């Protein structure tokens, strides 16, 4: 798979549907339209999840005063629709080429912003939804000689931070979605940016290591 893919991928045209899907995905999770009036409010993740009805004044089926495992069970149940809607939407975006578009857009800027060849963009996008897919593809690229040792280690730093962010964020952080004061996508983007910070710190460390080694050689 990794043998032919990177070469054919550079010729691939950027699909318009994919770009539109990517933009919709960003809008849906950004929270921009959470307070919108009229039809636009459907372009928001928290509105799409809807709300539970109230059984008594001020509390939903979870009630109040529960403790320990039973309370945890009912609380967890309130999250099932959140995770299911998130994954359902992400699946649509993915099937209609949003990730492919992201991959295509990333290819030319990989070298300047990460110091990794554009060929690795497939692995990068893969690592966003599955840490295992990302690390397995990275290993393949290295074994095929398409990444140097330094590039591989920079790439590992990128993947390690908030690994598998799409799936892990929408499951692991889901309990907080109802209480946070910013759009669902805001902490996500922040964590995503940190991945680039971390990769570039690794670049710096590798440079310093090389300098040190050169000094020692003298």
């Amino acid at each position: 798979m990794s043998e032919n893919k990177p070469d054919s991928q550079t010729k691939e045209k950027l699909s318009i549907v994919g770009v539109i899907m990517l933009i919709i995905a960003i809008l849906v999770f950004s929270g921009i339209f959470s307070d919108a009036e009229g039809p636009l409010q459907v372009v928001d993740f928290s509105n799409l999840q809807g709300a539970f009805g109230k059984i008594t004044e001020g509390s939903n089926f979870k009630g109040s005063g529960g403790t320990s495992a039973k309370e945890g069970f009912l609380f967890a149940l309130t999250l099932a629709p959140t995770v299911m809607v998130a994954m359902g939407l992400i699946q649509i975006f993915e099937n209609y080429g949003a990730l492919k578009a992201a991959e295509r857009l990333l290819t030319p800027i990989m070298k300047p912003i990460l110091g990794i060849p554009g060929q690795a963009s497939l692995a990068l996008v893969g690592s966003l939804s599955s840490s295992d897919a990302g690390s397995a593809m990275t290993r393949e690229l290295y074994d095929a000689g398409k990444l140097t040792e330094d590039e591989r280690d920079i790439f590992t730093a990128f993947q390690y931070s908030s690994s598998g962010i799409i799936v892990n964020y929408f499951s692991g952080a889901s309990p907080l979605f109802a209480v946070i004061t910013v759009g669902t996508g805001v902490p996500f983007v922040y964590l995503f940016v940190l991945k680039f910070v971390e990769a570039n710190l690794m670049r710096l460390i590798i440079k310093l290591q090389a300098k040190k080694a050169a000094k020692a050689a003298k």
Partner: protein
Amino acid sequence: MEQATTAAKKRNIFDSFQDGARKGWNIFVKNVLPSIIMAYTFIYILETTGLMEVFSNIFSPVMGIFGLPPISIVCLATVFFSRAGGSALAASFVVDGSLTPMQATILLPTMFLIGGTINQWVRVISICGTRPDRQKYIILMTWVLAFLSLWITSIIFPLFA
């Protein structure tokens, strides 16, 4: 791969949504639900035995540096075992008033970053085959960034509130 893409194309929007929702249900049942039950039971034990009080007192100066109540250390400790569990506790602390919604928002990225420490070492670092002398830097960077995040996000997030 080629076949996989055509197969995916055949799925229309409605099928895709259901495929994803099914995946979401499995993640919910297999990961989210058990870890939240674990976290709630764990916290019940800590609260009832008074260990929570002890724990919070020990860490109150540390969390104070970041302008957070001592109880937030419990979320940061739980997240080691499970992200969903730690997040669930933070959410429950907001409900009972121990944390403000903004404090929970500030904690989120930090919990997420340190929550993957062990799991991702196995799944990312060892599979990628990172040079052994560089592995410690990756973990160290993540932790430093995780704690710096408490300050950074307390400045950034209010802008988006």
